[in-house]
């Protein structure tokens, strides 16, 4: 216990990130199940309005701040030093500090549930002025801000650490243009985090000053401006969307190249596209604010459309990597293909709502809920499960059961689409998001019932994944160091890797050192 509490080994820290994010994922999943149970039928009284507000706030907050983003960071903690041939990260103690700030920050957010008045209930965006005046936003709202401030600091510290590690600790011969795409995506993500997260920390600190020290930054009655909060929040918030997706682009690239038995198609294009997405994402924040009438809609619309170009480049490269490859449809590859299909829907609906006239119609409706769940849920979450199946043998020396994994994929893919396809139609029928009930008009009862049934199927899929983990660990079938025929450096060490990662480092002569070292390679 003490060993794990005090460890500074990047692998143990990475594993603790993964375990803690999966724990928060289970809680967020239970909250999502509560949302769908409440909305399964019109006029349901399972949850009251204030309880419902807390549930969807904590669900969104946990999924974004405590699951999807930190899982990517945690996986990077584990993998980046291995992929570049480094013995550890540049600042191991800083790394451990980041982990514990994240874990304590996450617990602090949920601790709001134990306070009088309950947890934060303002949505994950916690807009001003409702973060100050909304009924019931007591200590729970403060704990929300404190917890997320801690996770923000943690994320910034870890990003600096990862950047320094990649730039200064690469093994001899591992030039920047030889590092795996996952590591490149982490570099782009880390730069984005360093640029965007201070804005969030500023917004939350200012909100706390308003709540406790008499500040009036966002209070129009005293000359403040609530739109300023939205600027600060979304200057973080839209890059955050790419913090939530770029690492997963990297995961999918690694999986597709490995299971297609081909080098990454368009490696340089992939890297440039990642940085183009990161750069453009810093100029689109106010497309979340089209309907305020206080921003330049043409500017933000144009830049938002532009992001589709590098994202399209990535899709071409993924398909190019698979093209004429010897594709093995094992579980990680199934999740990668699921990612491609779902993320495509999220991307296309994103292009639709980048157009202000459409956004005016869709804003705050279930169409938006469908859109971002297809990008973050159908995209990142599928890649997350793909990563777990792909790197589990490396982390724990145990391969997850392939047969159960196929069922996990099938249930998640079916359940996910059954849940979220109806939401697009709900939005078009005018159903607003963040409402705890709705009238029995049009197709809304049927669409909501289907969505709730889909959520139940997804829940079964997630439960089956944890059963797979338990079954596989119990069986402990022997696994090779490289069970998939991977190409990057992490597959050239033992599973799990030893302290300081490599007993001996190979000569690195290309982007695929593991392939170079195999007998018969030229």
């Amino acid at each position, binding site marked *: 216990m003490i*060993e794990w509490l*005090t460890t500074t080994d990047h692998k143990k820290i990475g594993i603790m990130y993964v375990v803690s994010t999966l724990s928060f994922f289970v809680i967020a999943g239970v909250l999502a199940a509560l949302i769908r149970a409440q909305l399964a039928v019109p006029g349901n009284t399972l949850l009251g309005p204030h309880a419902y507000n807390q549930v969807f706030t904590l669900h969104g907050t946990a999924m974004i701040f405590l699951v999807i983003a930190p899982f990517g960071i945690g996986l990077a903690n584990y993998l980046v030093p291995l992929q570049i041939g480094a013995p550890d990260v540049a600042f191991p*103690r800083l790394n*451990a500090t980041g982990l514990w700030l994240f874990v304590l920050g996450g617990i602090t957010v949920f601790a709001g549930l134990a306070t009088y008045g309950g947890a934060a209930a303002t949505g994950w965006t916690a807009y001003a002025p409702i973060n100050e005046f909304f009924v019931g936003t007591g200590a729970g709202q403060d704990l929300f801000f404190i917890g997320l401030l801690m996770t923000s600091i943690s994320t910034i510290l870890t990003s600096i650490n990862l950047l320094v590690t990649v730039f200064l600790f690469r093994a001899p011969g591992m030039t920047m243009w030889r590092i795996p795409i996952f590591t490149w995506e982490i570099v782009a993500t880390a730069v984005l985090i360093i640029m965007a997260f201070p804005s969030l920390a500023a917004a939350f600190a200012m909100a706390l000053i308003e709540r406790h020290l008499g500040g009036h930054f966002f209070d129009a009655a005293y000359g403040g401006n609530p739109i300023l909060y939205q600027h600060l929040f979304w200057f973080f918030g839209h890059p955050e969307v790419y913090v939530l997706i770029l690492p997963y682009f990297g995961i999918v690239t690694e999986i597709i190249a490995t299971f297609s038995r081909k080098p990454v198609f368009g490696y340089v294009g992939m890297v440039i596209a990642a940085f183009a997405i990161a750069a453009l994402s*810093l*100029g689109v924040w106010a497309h979340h604010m089209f309907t305020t009438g206080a921003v330049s809609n043409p500017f933000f619309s144009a830049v938002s459309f532009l992001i589709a170009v590098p994202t399209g480049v990535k899709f071409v490269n993924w398909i190019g990597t698979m093209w004429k490859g010897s594709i093995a449809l094992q579980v990680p590859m199934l999740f990668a293909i699921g990612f491609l299909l779902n993320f495509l829907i999220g991307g296309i609906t994103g292009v639709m709502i980048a157009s202000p006239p459409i956004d005016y119609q869709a804003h705050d409706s279930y169409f938006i809920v469908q859109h971002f769940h297809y990008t973050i849920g159908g995209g990142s979450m599928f890649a997350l499960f793909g990563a777990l199946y792909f790197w589990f043998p490396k982390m724990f020396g145990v391969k997850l059961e392939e047969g159960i994994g196929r069922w996990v994929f099938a249930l998640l893919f079916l359940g996910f689409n059954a849940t979220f396809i109806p939401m697009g139609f709900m939005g078009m029928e005018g159903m607003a998001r963040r409402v705890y009930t709705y009238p029995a008009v049009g197709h809304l009862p049927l669409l909501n019932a289907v969505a709730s049934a889909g959520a139940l199927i997804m829940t079964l899929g997630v439960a089956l994944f944890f059963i797979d983990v338990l079954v596989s660990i119990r069986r402990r079938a022997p696994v090779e160091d490289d069970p998939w025929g991977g190409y990057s450096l992490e597959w050239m060490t033992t599973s799990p890797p030893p302290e300081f990662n490599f007993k001996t480092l190979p000569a690195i002569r290309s982007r695929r050192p593991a392939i170079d070292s195999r007998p018969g390679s030229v």
Partner: protein
Amino acid sequence: MRSFVGLFAFAAAFGAVIAVVYWFVAHEEAAGTALLAVMATGLAFAAAYAVVAERDARLEGDDPNETPQMAAGDDLGVFTTNSPWPVLIALCTLALFTGLLWSPLLGIAGLVGMILCFWRLGAESART
């Protein structure tokens, strides 16, 4: 270091260009322009710092022909395996933040604890 400088300089230039474009297109909207300008300045500072402070840095990872045998004997420093201070620093941070809102005594305890932890961590770092 060239890759670091190139990446940050390019990002800073992008930030500066988009800040200027935004200022004119968004009818001189101050909040967004300030955010973009601060971002560009920060990135430019990082690139300039790397140029000035690390101009002579030579990294084995930047040489495509370098091998582990050629780099043998180079000292990467000592990587610590355990330290009690990170988890304590995180606990003190939580105490400081919650104390600031509800309990000055807890806040002071958190601050003092944090300073002590950093002090000990610095000493530990100097030893290893």
